[in-house]
């Protein structure tokens, strides 16, 4: 990323007259005031969706996977599409908190906390699917874990699904720890601002006795850097490993060496789109436009268009290699994507992920919420379809034409998809209500630096 931060980022990350005190007041206001009617309305809707998720999941477990549209040959469909989609969403959080941190991109502070929370919740959503998609989740939840048992048999560590178990659980755990570490000082602030003893107690316990001591800061900053350093290869590895689910198989359309970078780029792409989608609402809802500024949005949009070009390149190179490689099965698989029965999904993908984001080349579009919002929404749609295209169209027609089949999702499939958004958004709403959505402490650093450098405000 070659954004010149010294000239661009620092001065323009705040709007209006911001002091350390006012910063705290703004950020902690949602925690300290009674939720607005809009918040209640929102959580009622998302809570209902989350309940749909729970019901559909229970129904699936009781009746069997047959209540979905999956079949042979399309043995994976919405389940794994949703899994990859949510894992991908999570990646933007880690990218913002870790990679942009390592690159000293200061503007990340405005959105990092929110994006990290998104990571954690997206991973929670994602984790539902690999477990739920197994035929016997009540056994899968144990047998995928190498624990001492009476059978004397253990997982097969050669399986990409087993790699997933390690990768996704590590990712979830590390993301949560990283997020929590970042939250510590802010929780301490929340504790010290709290008036009600119960709030004070809860935030007090959660902040683990943080005192802002510089002896602690010294280790803390090192730890944060190390977390960032670990998370960076971790986030790359996680989506690479998720892509291995497909890349190490033999199925034409899956067996592709470009998958790891392509998946990572796609994950960042979709993740940033999701961050933008949600943070625009969040900053409006909690009146934080002066902290999450249009400059932030513009920078995100720049990353979106960069990653859009990457996935566009991947789509093109896939087609090229399919032609150039000369393997007839593979050639057919890609032609079938673009022209077969699921061509509509392919072209939705191309339109939403490659064509529409090109509008972001215009500065006006990048900086106008009303113009960019439809674009980021479409990117979310497009990236869901990208996984659908990869999984369903590759499976439904592979080597032997005799085994080719069709795929039709059922209501339960849609229930789980919509329901997973319910779970995710409910968690996000709770997060916005109970935890500081903006990394106040980090913002204070930037604010104080900009003030001490004599840099004014816009």
């Amino acid at each position, binding site marked *: 990323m070659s954004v010149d931060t010294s000239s661009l980022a620092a001065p323009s990350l705040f709007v209006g007259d911001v002091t350390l005190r006012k910063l705290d007041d703004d950020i902690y206001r949602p925690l300290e005031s009674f939720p607005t009617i809009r918040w209640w309305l929102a959580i009622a809707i998302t809570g209902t969706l989350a309940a749909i998720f729970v019901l559909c999941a229970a129904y699936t477990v009781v*009746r*069997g*996977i*047959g*209540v979905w*549209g*999956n*079949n*042979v*040959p*399309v*043995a*994976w469909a919405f389940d794994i599409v949703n899994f990859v989609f949510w894992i991908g969403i999570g990646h933007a959080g880690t990218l913002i908190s870790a990679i942009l941190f390592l690159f000293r991109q200061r503007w990340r502070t405005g959105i990092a906390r929110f994006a990290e929370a998104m990571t954690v919740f997206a991973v929670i959503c994602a984790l539902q699917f690999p477990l739920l*998609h*197994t*035929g*016997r*989740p*009540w*056994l*899968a939840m*144990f*047998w*995928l874990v190498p*624990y001492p*048992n*009476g*059978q004397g*048999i*253990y*997982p*097969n560590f*050669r*399986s*990409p*699904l*087993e790699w997933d*178990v390690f990768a996704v659980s590590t990712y979830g755990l590390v993301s949560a720890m990283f997020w929590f570490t970042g939250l510590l000082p802010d929780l301490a602030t929340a504790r010290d601002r709290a008036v009600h003893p119960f709030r004070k107690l809860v935030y007090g316990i959660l902040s683990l006795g943080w005192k802002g001591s510089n002896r602690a800061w010294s280790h803390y900053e090192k730890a944060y850097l190390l977390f960032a350093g670990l998370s960076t290869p971790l986030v790359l590895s996680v989506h690479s490993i998720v892509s291995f*689910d497909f890349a*190490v*198989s*033999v*199925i034409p359309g899956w067996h592709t060496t470009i998958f790891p970078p392509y998946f990572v780029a796609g994950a960042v792409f979709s993740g940033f789109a999701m961050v933008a989608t949600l943070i625009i609402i969040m900053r409006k809802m909690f009146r934080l436009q002066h902290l999450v500024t249009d400059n932030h949005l513009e920078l995100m949009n720049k990353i979106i268009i960069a990653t859009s070009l990457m996935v566009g390149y991947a789509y093109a190179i896939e087609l090229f290699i399919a032609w150039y490689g000369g393997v*007839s*099965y593979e050639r*057919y698989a890609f032609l079938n994507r673009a022209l077969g029965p699921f061509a509509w999904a392919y072209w939705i993908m191309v339109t939403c992920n490659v064509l529409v984001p090109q509008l972001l080349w215009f500065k006006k579009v990048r900086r106008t919420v009303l113009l960019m919002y439809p674009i980021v929404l479409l990117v979310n749609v497009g990236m869901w379809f990208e996984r659908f295209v990869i999984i369903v169209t590759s*499976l439904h*027609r*592979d*080597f*032997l*034409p*005799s*085994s*080719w*089949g*069709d795929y*039709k999702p059922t209501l339960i499939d849609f229930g789980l998809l919509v329901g997973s958004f319910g779970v995710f958004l409910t968690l996000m709403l709770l997060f916005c209500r109970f935890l500081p959505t903006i990394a106040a402490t980090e913002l204070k650093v930037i604010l104080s630096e900009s003030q001490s450098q004599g840099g004014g405000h816009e």
Partner: protein
Amino acid sequence: MTQDNVARVHSHETMHRLKSAALPSHGENLTSPDEMTRRDAIRILMGASSALALGLSGCERKPKREIVSRVAGPEYQMPGKALYYSSTWMEGPYPYGLIIKTVDGRPIKIEGNPDHPINRGTTSAAMQASVLSLYDPDRLRGPSGGGSPIGWEAVDQRVSEALRGASSAVLLTRANLGPTERELVRKFLSVAPHTRHFVHEVVHDGPRRAALGKIYGAVGEFLPRFDRARVILSLDSDFLGTDGAVLENIRLFTEGRRVNDAEHRRADISRLYVAEGAMTVTGSNADHRIRLRPSAMRRLASSLVRAIEGDAAELNALGAESGVSPALLTALVDDLRRNRGGALVVAGPHLPEADHAAVAILNDILRAPGNTLEWNTVLPSLKVDDPAEVEAVFERGVDVAIMLDTNPVYDWPGKDFASLLSRARLTVGHGQYLDETLAACSLALPSNHNLESWNDAEPRAGVMSICQPVIAPLFNTRQPAESLLTWTKALAAEGDAIRSFEDWHDYLRSRWGEGSATAAGGGENETKQRWEDALRAGGLFQAVREAPFPELNRAAAEDMARAELRSGGLDVVFLPHHAVYDGRFANNGWLQELPDPISKVVWDNAASVSLQTAQRLKAVEGDRVEIKVGDRSVVLPILVQPGMADGVVALTLGHGRTAGGKILGEAAGANVSRLLGQTAQIAPRLVTEVQLTRTGESQSLVRTQTEFSMHDRPIVLDGTLAEYREDAGFVQGKRHIPEPVTMFPPYDYSKGHKWGMAIDLSSCVGCNACVTACQAENNIPIVGREQCAVGREMHWIRIDRYLTGDAENPTVHQQPMLCQHCDNAPCESVCPVNATTHSPEGLNEMVYNRCVGTRYCSNNCPYKVRRFNFLRYQEAQLRDPVQELVFNPQVTVRGVGVMEKCTFCVQRINEGKYHAKDKGKAVEDGAIQTACQQACPAQAITFGDVNDPNSRIARMNASKRAFFVLEEYNVKPNVAYLARVRNLNPALAGDKKESHHG
């Protein structure tokens, strides 16, 4: 089954004692109280929660189970050990010899009797499925009169009283009565003098039989010797599918097509020409196919006669009219002429008499009689009566109507049979189900299943086959012959010899005693011994001298063949369904879910038409059309079938059943037999005047395969005989296999066993027997029409069918596809829980109880042969105390959420190994047979130890025709396919567009 097990076949006499000791004769307590609980015997896999390693399933111990001791069991019947009995399959149109495997007193698997001269150890799908019908919970469980249960005594009294007082009675039976049954019918008719016996079948070869009788002046039928023929011409005869002794036909046909690599330069196999209207199994195996309407068959036969005799004008005219390539017709004529004495023409049983006369002449001038045709004087079935005659009798008034194991209310080709029946005072229906007929009868009497019955059969001279029961009747049922004997005894005069017979078994036995006593003499003990020997062997099989071929009355034949040709806009041909036949097996789920060998449709019937005919009707696949013949009509969906002749509609019988079980209620389809029996038909199953109108509705047809193009992929390889003679390894030139690159050194499989399979595509005709055999052996569930529609059928072996070449008259490629047991199996490396692994003997093993159901293995299987239990498919069946008896105790019944696939019948492998070990010997080649291999009528499947250089499998694998599917992916499959050799007429080599790959 090993050789040794055949020797252990037990006769029913000992079985009789066993039953009294161990088997209560009726009802729920059927399972012998033995060492095991029933659950134990059946081996189920439900939640597998008890296996949860830390025992998280609960605090208490596992559910307490009991061992029920026997009081005093027969020594030879060890609980859990299989016993084998011989018998005869009497349910279908043709009787075949059976070996029935029973475990703990319950029959669980049917095999062919290897000693039976007709089927020689092979089986058909319907035979395999018979065991499922035995445990069908929808079977009638006791006699009922007017809807309420009554006792057999009351039944007998009512029937015999009614018969005594009857001034007119009708006995309606099926055609394949055994000789003893026929004798009993004669006896019955003699004591019930106002009774007339009629035979009813929808599917029969009446015209052929009538024609042969007239032109040869003798009763008899052709026995085609496909193995001796060099050139075979089939005129609408599906002899590999439904016409005649199919199992024998397939065997003989494939014998005549076998090639030997060592002598590939001199290889010579028969050439099959098929002229047909519908697309049949036979047609799909043709070297050259002529699409021709059934109503034009006679013209083809007659003009062939003339052309062979020198005048090809009419043949050319026919060719021009029906769009058949003149070159093909010329080549056919040349081929036939050149191969006099080695040529053979067969004609379909649904063609009119005149056609058979024409074919007889053709065969005669080709010198087929005595060479490629034998004459059989002992007919396997009775002559079917003219429905109009029966209707007339009913219309004159009938007091008593008795219908034994036949369902005329469903399939009567003529007037509404139910209303005819309603005129009779007493109507007695005998059958296994409360079907359409029994529901319309005043007395509904339950019949025994074939496996509960005594019977005999004599399909041809020298073949006397015995059917013995292998289980006491499950329900309060009785064999129709038993009923008939009871009624005969009741009607017979005091002192009549018939009254001395205790029961039907006694009657049958004494008749056999008489027969063998007169033949061989000897005392009572020897008679008994001979009877027991015959039971053990499955019958008396003697080589008899071939009957001399009678002289053809050519003038009469020509006269007959000149009969007026009637033809309308469309030909409608009524074919028996490949699995449920005429509807008698409609309540059998294995058969309903068996894909049609040609269209792959399941659970349904349709109106098949060619692409051009569909276009003419402006209909597309799935459009429902009203098919109107005379004043009756049915509505069926259109199925566009490549290979059909234009102007032909092919309808399959056997669907649209309305009563008699839950399974047939699941099936879709319509009853087409109601269109029959009107003036528009030129033969009993051939109609030429028909109207088709689109109803505007449409319906989806459920097919297990939807893509029939091979997309130029080297999947099924074949070549012509010319190519083969040139180079036995012609397959190698048809694809490109790059040198495999691998990171890992391969495992050494050279020690011990290495199991492998070879499938000779030259032999496979695509008959589906293997599919059902596998289903029976491996407890494979049926999933129903809806689940099939979403692609969840469970067959471990399927027969892939590809069409290449001409879209209207394609070349058909069949390929049985099953788990390839790859050495580098892609499914194994992706399973996260080690549920699918490799054995040191080269088996790809699937451990159901370890499987958590990620389905990743299925995704990564290039052959897509893995099957997933998406829903609780087997649970209802497991809970039913009758249905659960069908399960093979040697194979786990899979629960929901578990992947499954072909195991190479690992239970048989283990048993074979144990057996050899106990004897201290190596496993003999051929001692271990997979279920599919054992059933295969074409002997196309070979299984064995690849490491044994003398084994048949090693020879097959070494064949130059052998190739592996997707070999280029270096998955190292263990199922070798031997490329099909097609015997194309060299004169037509350029005419026929053969697809080349790679």
